[in-house]
């Protein structure tokens, strides 16, 4: 990336009008070209050792998620057990990256996962719609952090973003980041509500400038959730941000990724759009629930040479 961008970055967050100037000055995204490129990369054929490696890597990148009104402590505890040992009969299976729950269940998850490598992520800021005032959102974040969550998944104020109040969105992310303390902040853009790829690019940069450690596609509550082209745009943003600042930031694709085939397509995109250094759970995550079991089934099939029934897997 040119020096020009690094210079512009310093200037971008000075005040609201310079922020707007920066975001409006980002190069546009051509929809046809982007979708063509995403579809082209999706035809990569990943076989044998590469596939085995990809399956294990994908498992280690999963944020195993349950975000239902009907969630119970028991359900969260069993999810945590699965997160640590996804396939109990195959102890060589890697653990997932994190368990993602609502803030009131974060303490339960923390208790279940203490002493393991699996992190607890909690959604916050009036997830999923983000429709509340700043005080409530910060209190929500505080609950997550005080319960011991190491990662916080916040939602941006899409209403403010679409109205063009970029300063408000920026300030809110900065405030939440502060409330997070040492916890990692993932900023959910809810790309399904942003309507255009240009907006996805702007929102990505906005979140990166405001200090988001990870930019995340979706809540999973809005359709469409993660798509390959949207993820491409976000991967380009973190790549360009890294080139300009030297700081690596992450991407999380959440919602709608259910099969191993899908997951591998995302890994190929990470590899070829952002670069191979992003192929690590600290810089790329899948937000998913049913994906894990498909990865486990495919993993077994690779080892055994045939498919086994889903009944052998927990949950």
């Amino acid at each position, binding site marked *: 990336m040119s020096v020009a961008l690094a210079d512009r970055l310093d200037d971008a967050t000075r005040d609201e009008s310079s922020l707007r100037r920066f975001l409006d000055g980002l190069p546009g995204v*051509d929809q046809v*070209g982007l979708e063509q490129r995403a579809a082209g990369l999706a035809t990569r*054929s990943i076989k044998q050792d590469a596939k085995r490696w990809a399956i294990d890597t994908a498992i280690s990148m999963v944020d195993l998620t349950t975000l239902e009104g009907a969630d119970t402590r028991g359900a969260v505890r069993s999810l945590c057990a699965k997160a640590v040992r996804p396939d109990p009969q195959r102890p060589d299976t890697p653990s997932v990256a994190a368990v993602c729950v609502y803030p009131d269940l974060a303490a339960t998850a923390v208790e279940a996962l203490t002493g393991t490598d699996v992190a607890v992520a909690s959604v916050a800021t009036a997830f999923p719609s983000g429709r509340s005032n700043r005080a409530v959102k910060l209190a929500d974040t505080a609950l997550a952090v005080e319960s011991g969550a190491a990662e916080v998944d916040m939602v941006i104020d899409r209403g403010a973003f679409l109205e063009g109040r970029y300063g408000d969105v920026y300030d809110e992310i900065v405030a939440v980041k502060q409330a997070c303390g040492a916890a990692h902040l993932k900023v959910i853009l809810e790309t399904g509500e942003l309507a255009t790829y240009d907006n996805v690019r702007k929102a990505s940069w906005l979140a990166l400038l405001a200090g988001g450690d990870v930019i995340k596609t979706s809540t999973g509550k809005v359709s469409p959730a993660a798509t390959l082209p949207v993820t491409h745009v976000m991967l380009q943003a973190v790549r360009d941000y890294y080139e300009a600042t030297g700081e690596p930031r992450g991407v999380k694709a959440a919602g709608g990724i259910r099969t191993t085939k899908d997951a591998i397509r995302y890994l190929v995109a990470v590899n070829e759009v952002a670069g191979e250094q992003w192929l690590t759970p600290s810089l790329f995550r899948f937000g998913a629930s049913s994906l894990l079991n498909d990865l486990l089934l495919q993993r077994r099939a690779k080892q055994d040479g045939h498919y086994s029934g889903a009944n052998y897997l927990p949950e």
Partner: protein
Amino acid sequence: MPVFDYAPAPENREIARVKQYYQPFIGGGFVDGGGEPLKTLNPATGEVLAEVSTVASSDVDSAVTAARKAFERVWSPMPGAERAKYIYRIARLIQERARELAVLESLDNGKPIKESRDADIPTAAAHFFYHAGWADKLDYAGFSTSTAGPPQPLGVAGQVIPWNFPLLMLAWKIAPALATGNTVVLKPAETTPLTALVFAEICQQAELPPGVVNIVPGAGDVGEMLVTHPGIDKVAFTGSTEVGKLIQRQLAGTRTRLTLELGGKAANVVFDDAPLDQAIEGIVNGIFFNQGHVCCAGSRLLVQESVADEVLAKLRARVETLRLGDPLDKNTDIGAINSAEQLAKIRELVASGEDEGAQRWTSSCPVPEKGYFFAPTVFSGVESSMRIAREEIFGPVLSVQTFRTPDEAVTKANTTPYGLSAGVWTEKGSRILWLSNALRAGVVWANTFNRFDPSAPFGGYKESGFGREGGRSGLAAYLKGADDGEV
């Protein structure tokens, strides 16, 4: 060792059902030709793929005679709706045998399987489907006149095609000719004759009347016999400007109609307000698609000064990710150069670029030891006077120049004897419209490159040739009176 090392995912070469020996297709049957047999190579290994019997002058005579007989007795009197049925059948058979054709094309030509599978073969089938639809609608295509009535076919077409898109170029030539009621004698390129001869099998499978399509393999001498044959009413040639000029000279003063689709040195113009990430993709697709063996390749990148450094940096990073190697591997982006001769030509031009002072950058991708390969290369600091800016390289080599104002972009883009295609990258619609008028090129792509559709006419300005292929305009090249005026 990369973190994510894609294991080889080769397509099975058995699918191509390569035979040891292929014969010319004349008068509905496969016959031995009187010419010296040629050996066609797999450019990815340099090994012989198959032997092909070539034709002598007497065989060209019998092919033209068979085509004439078929034209007079069967094909031109046949109602358009009946001709359409045959052409539809051919299109469907290409689809049915798509995998076989794709693997065969990649073996014979060296292009990556992902391109033969996803571009060449499906587009070839699409051309037959598209033109089949015209066969019964010619009377209403706008070519009829009050004096001459509905448009009439020309007769026997002699067609000569290049090696870069063997089956697709065949489709571009044969589909409109058949739809308009002409019969054809086609010469495939010397280095890539195989898919044309499988196409001949498809003609048999489709029960196309004997003589409507004839395929006569051979080298340039056979091409010359064919285009100068007195029994030919129309010549259609795609290939180098040099040979195109020769043909035009030979046909001057005869009644033979001629269309030429020749070389190019397309400018791909990137403005500072362009969607840059997609522009990078477009630049890559423009010059590295099919190893750069594309007459309309975007071989000259003109980039606005203010974004030049950024574009070059992104471009190099992107090109570095291109995977060069076995054409049959589904993950290969750049396959083999078609022939030793072409590889030598690319090397010679690249050396001239270095000698003339342009800065060379070449991807560090591993290059196979066997076969003909050339790593993707980008020259910056290129001046319009350098050979790499003026001559068609026909390989994976991009020449980058910068410009300051839109007028300078137009001047630089038009500073070439060629005029086949051009690309414009900008988010500004008015600039696209202005530029597409100002660029002297037959095709101008806006925010995309190398997109082909049977309904879109394709052809050149200046030394890139004349006549159009595809669309309604493409039909005119095969109808009496239709190409005399503006259509």
